[in-house]
């Protein structure tokens, strides 16, 4: 009966938000944040990034569903003359904007390699080239379209590996996308279908990780260090297979180095510095108020119950 818990006599910390506590906490947090911000901004500034939007240049108005039909265009660009491009590993991304891979009604979300229905024939749509034809997508519906069709290649002196490897999550490659899939002969014999059969292809796996926002980058290749030459000119050969103009999207090609915070991230550093400054400012305001007209703790003049 007579225990500290039952009698509500547990030893406890009973803190109060006193001026000393609050002002020094705000000050400490503010200073720490400004410090962190400097670190982030420094790292972010070290990151080299090159974006090439090419959808205007390589405009196309149709979709192609087989390997051979596409329009090709070449994009020339000069790598800025910063040593970083040579000394570090360079990540190659393709970026789409206004593309809602996370739309609930898009087929990406519910996909499960073990679920034959999801892999199957849920997505039936009109062949854009022939309205009378309906296409069934396999193994995973429409998802493969953009993925398969987006094939930017850097050709000049070919610094970029042709085979995708090491770009997808290890867990996806090792466990998730090795599932035996239904034999192509088991496909329903109705209409024609487009078969993306190589489920374990890393480009496909990367595509399958749903992007959370309508503007997103996906890793395409990693170029090892010392392959690129700063200041050199490269050609990007693009096999152009789908339009983005219809829905107001863009296509961009991005080359980037990395740092400990990942890719270039200007927001984070600025956010930290702003928050840090606000915290210090609050600390100063509270301090000034406390010095000019202190509200002394426990002041009985405020004991008015009216």
């Amino acid at each position, binding site marked *: 009966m007579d225990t500290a818990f039952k009698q509500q006599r547990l030893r406890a910390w009973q803190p109060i*938000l006193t001026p000393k506590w609050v002002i020094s906490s705000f000050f400490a947090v503010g200073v720490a944040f400004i410090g962190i911000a400097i670190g982030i901004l420094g790292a972010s500034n070290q990151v080299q990034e090159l974006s090439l939007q090419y959808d205007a240049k390589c405009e196309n108005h149709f979709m192609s569903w087989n390997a051979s039909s596409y329009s090709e265009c070449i994009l020339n660009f000069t790598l800025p003359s910063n040593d970083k491009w040579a000394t570090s590993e360079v990540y190659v991304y393709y970026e789409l904007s206004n593309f809602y891979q996370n739309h609930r009604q898009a087929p990406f979300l519910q996909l499960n390699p073990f679920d034959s229905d999801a892999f199957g024939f849920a997505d039936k749509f009109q062949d854009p080239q022939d309205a009378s034809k309906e296409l069934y997508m396999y193994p995973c519906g*429409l998802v493969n379209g953009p993925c398969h069709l987006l094939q930017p290649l850097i050709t000049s002196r070919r610094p970029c590996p042709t085979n995708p490897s090491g770009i997808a999550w290890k*867990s996806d490659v090792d466990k998730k996308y090795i599932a035996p899939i239904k034999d192509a002969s088991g496909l329903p014999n109705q209409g024609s279908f487009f078969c993306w059969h190589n489920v374990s292809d890393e480009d496909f796996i990367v595509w399958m990780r749903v992007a959370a926002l309508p503007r997103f980058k996906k890793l395409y290749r990693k170029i090892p260090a010392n392959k690129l030459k700063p200041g050199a000119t490269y050609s990007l050969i693009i096999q152009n297979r789908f339009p983005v103009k219809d829905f107001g999207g863009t296509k961009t090609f991005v080359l980037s180095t990395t740092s400990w915070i990942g890719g270039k991230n200007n*927001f984070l550093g600025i956010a930290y510095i702003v928050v840090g400054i606000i*915290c210090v400012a609050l600390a100063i305001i509270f301090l000034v108020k406390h010095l000019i007209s202190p509200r002394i703790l*426990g002041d009985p003049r*405020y004991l008015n119950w009216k």
Partner: protein
Amino acid sequence: MENAHCKSYSNAPSDNTTQKSTSNKVVTSKYTFYSFLPRNLYEQFSRLANVYFLLISCLQLFTSLSPTSKWSTGGPFILILVLNMIREIWEDSKRHKADEEVNNRLVEVIRENGSTESIPWKSVTLGDIVWVKCNHEFPADVVLLSSTGDQGMCYIDTCNLDGETNLKIRNSLAFTASLNDPLKISQLKGYFEYEAPNNRLYTFNGRYVRPAAEDVPVDNENILLRGATLRNTQSIFGQVVYTGAQSKIMMNSQKGRVKISNIEHTVNRLLLGILLFELIVVSAATIGMASWVSSNREAWYLPYVKTQTTANNFEGWITFLLLMNNYVPISLYISMELAKTVQGQQMNWDIEMYHEETDTPALTRTTNLNEELGQIQYIFSDKTGTLTQNVMEFRKCFINTTSYGFGTTEIGIAAAARGTNIQVDQDPTATEAERDKDPNKAQFHRDPKIAFDDIRLLQRHREGGSEGEFINDFMRVLSVCHTVVPEGDLTDPSKILYQAESPDEGALSGFAKALGWFFCGRTSTHTTVDVHGKKEQFEILNVNKFNSARKRMSVVCRTPEGKIMLYCKGADNVMLERIAPNQSQRAPMESALTHYANEGLRTLVLGKKEIPESAWVEWNKVHHAASTALVDRDGALERAAEDIEKEMIIVGATAIEDKLQVGVPDAIATLAQGGIKIWVLTGDKQETAENIGFACRLLRDDMEINYINGSSDDEIKRQLDHILQRNDSYVGKETEHLALIVDGKSLLVLMEESELSQKLLTVAKMCKAVIACRVSPNQKREIVTLVRRGVQPEPMTLSIGDGANDVPMIMEAHVGVGISGNEGLQAVRSADYAIAQFRYLKRLMLIHGRNNYRRVAEVVLYSFYKNMTLVTSLFLYNIYNGWSGTAIYASIILICFNVAYTFLPIIFYGFLERDVNDTTALKNPQLYIPGQRREGFNATVMLTWMLNAIVHCIFVFFLPTAAFAATGMVDLGVYGTTVMHSLVIAVNFRLFLEENYISWISHLVIFVSVALFYFVVGVASNMPLSLTLFDVNLFYGVGKMTFEEVLFYMATLLTIVVANSIDVASLYIARNFFPTPTHIIQERERGYGRNFYNTGDDSGMENEERSVILANAGSPR
């Protein structure tokens, strides 16, 4: 006789089977094995919120419209239903065990052939003749046929039934009293005819119909109720008349109305409000979807968008409803219930509310009202047994023209100090020698418990003469006119124990014994009194019983001298109406009575009357007819008694002291400081009530006491108007210096007219203290009703009492508190909380009530807050997913929000939180005021929390989003997990900021909750891919990638610092710029601000004491 009657045939089982009766198997448990599931589910689904979640679960399970896992509502919902079931099973299993034991107890029954058979209680049927042995309980309600006791009498104790511990006498039917063995009793032929089953414990109307003889009346004197125990009697035979559920104890245990707390009512309304809000948000999202679709028809990769129709919009609406169904907090009720269950235990455990002498801890009978205890504005208190100890001590008596007994009471001393004309040492006529004050000389059989030390009484009796005659009459009435049962050694006055129905009776007969009128035996017809060694026998002819309406009892007896005498005792007002005119003692007695009342003594007047033999024979016929009446027997008996209790001769008056309970004045003064109005409702006279009021510091000298005691409309109106005129500047305000005393007689008139009762309320609201005297139980209830209905807004009321007469007001008030004391268990049975002493009320309200109110309010507010934050982020994410309803969080991560990462801390908060220490709360009763003003839970507070939720959600959602968007590398799994991470830490830290009492447990539960988040992420992302429950497979591998992502940490740190800095800053600004008195007292308790008033003279004072002074200084006068 009407049709509503029952029959019970003796020794004729076949006849009895034609009677409607129930099995004697008693079931007090709520559930059986088969009824558990349907009944529990029915109860759970009578809560609207649960129906809502059932609907949502079904929609999710049976349609493909849910954006999250099919089980994302169903899973947690089932978990919460099961938790509730476990709680119920735990509670019910105790009742099952008790039932099992009772139903299988054995009892012997007599068969028609005179043989006996031992059968379990549950097999006992109507008409069975049972043979019950000493110290055994009766298996059903039975009529006593015969017993081994003297003349068929037996003793019972009804402690389990009504809590009264005194022995009571029951009598056999006269014609069966000799049938005292199985064979004889099995010869009995005939049947009982009696009223239908009812819950009246103290009445029974029936008769025994004999084949060839007159009917015999059967009444409560012959009844042995289930629940009572046979005492001091070897065995009895009795015939069963009510079985099982029809027995009186079961009829009584039907539940009263279930009181629902104010907060819970508000919560139910809030739930509807939040549901409405949810529907608006859902509809807004649907509109968002429709407009997004219409402007994105060209998104060729979304086949759905091309074909989207209006009908799809409805589906979209359902999708959004399923996505955002958690605006209604699923864990709210279970959190509240679990927290309140522990709160109830804490009150039971509280060692400071444990009364050691009677071994009584506080008892929480319902946990529904825990928080109401912290909001009480009006206390309605009974006096006897609640403010006083209900231990009666005989102090004084008035005989002929003299008042015997010296000294005065504490109340008398207090009254004398105020300058009233009380002489502390009464009766200046006593000579110096007579004031010897030796109790050994003053008493014949010295009783150490009686302090009576006036030696004149016995002296004058010995001297004889007319004064001696008067004294003898007086003591005779005391020793004969009662219903006390003697127990123990009947020859030794020091070893005898008087079992009295009321403490007053015990005190009176105890006094008579001490003075040498030793009541030493009672049979069904005779009472024996040993008068200074000489036995006197009184034949008891009739007894007119006491009840609260008659306020008197009388006995008609044949004295040893052979005269028929009526001895009567009763309340002074009823007695004075019934005495013969022109008696010289009347005037001095009345002045003595006033004097006694001023000393706070309880007074009774004794009377006698000689009845001529012939008159008695006449009257006895009337009385007999009344006592055998089957319809309105009580009324008939009352009228018969009324006929004879008149024109009596004054014998004297008694004055008994009922001492105040320990700590009452302090408790009342403290509660009054806490802004609580205390109304004392008592049956006492105005003077007694007033003096008690002073003694318990309800009234103070600096108060202006107003009286309303008129008996006509006009008079009362005049009195009220007079008070209003004199104090018109205080109308609508409460003032410290006004008090009101209302008389029960005036209340009768007041309650009739709404205009007058409104005026009374206006006056009463101005007054700090109100005393209603001479009120009946029903008037007590009416007063509570008047305040509840009349005062706007409706104030929170609490009634506290100990006796059956307090039950109506206990039931009527928001919170009923019973004192588990001497007057039985009736008040406790109908109360919500029971405490052993009035002074514990202080702790119950100022500490437990206050804490519980703050806690429960916070549980509700925080539950809404955290879900608001969670679900709004689900809504906001639609900005980035084309208003399609995609969930930002993986299902498994979302599901665990309410049942894992934020489940425990708020429940623990719900019974651990305390903003100030107990001593501070007791010493600064004003801390109770915010609860009365509902400052912890009202529309403003609710909106503030909702605003807080929205602000938090905006930062929690947009900051990580912007951080991820800046890099463009945004995997949905990693991103959602990061946002959830920020959310979990931010809302847990928010609760941490609300905590004022952070023990290791509080640290632990918050730590565990956040750790559970990492645990769930880690486990869920490593489950086998074949597991599709809660869509865990879609989360495969996300954990590792999330924990490796620098942004996961950097975005969370940024978010929680921003979100919680806003909280810290606003809490600090509130405390620093707009401090409430609670803030100040909290600070002073923690040792700040000591240098104020450090002027030397109070430097030796304890910190807390000083804060009392300060708090008083600041309180309004």
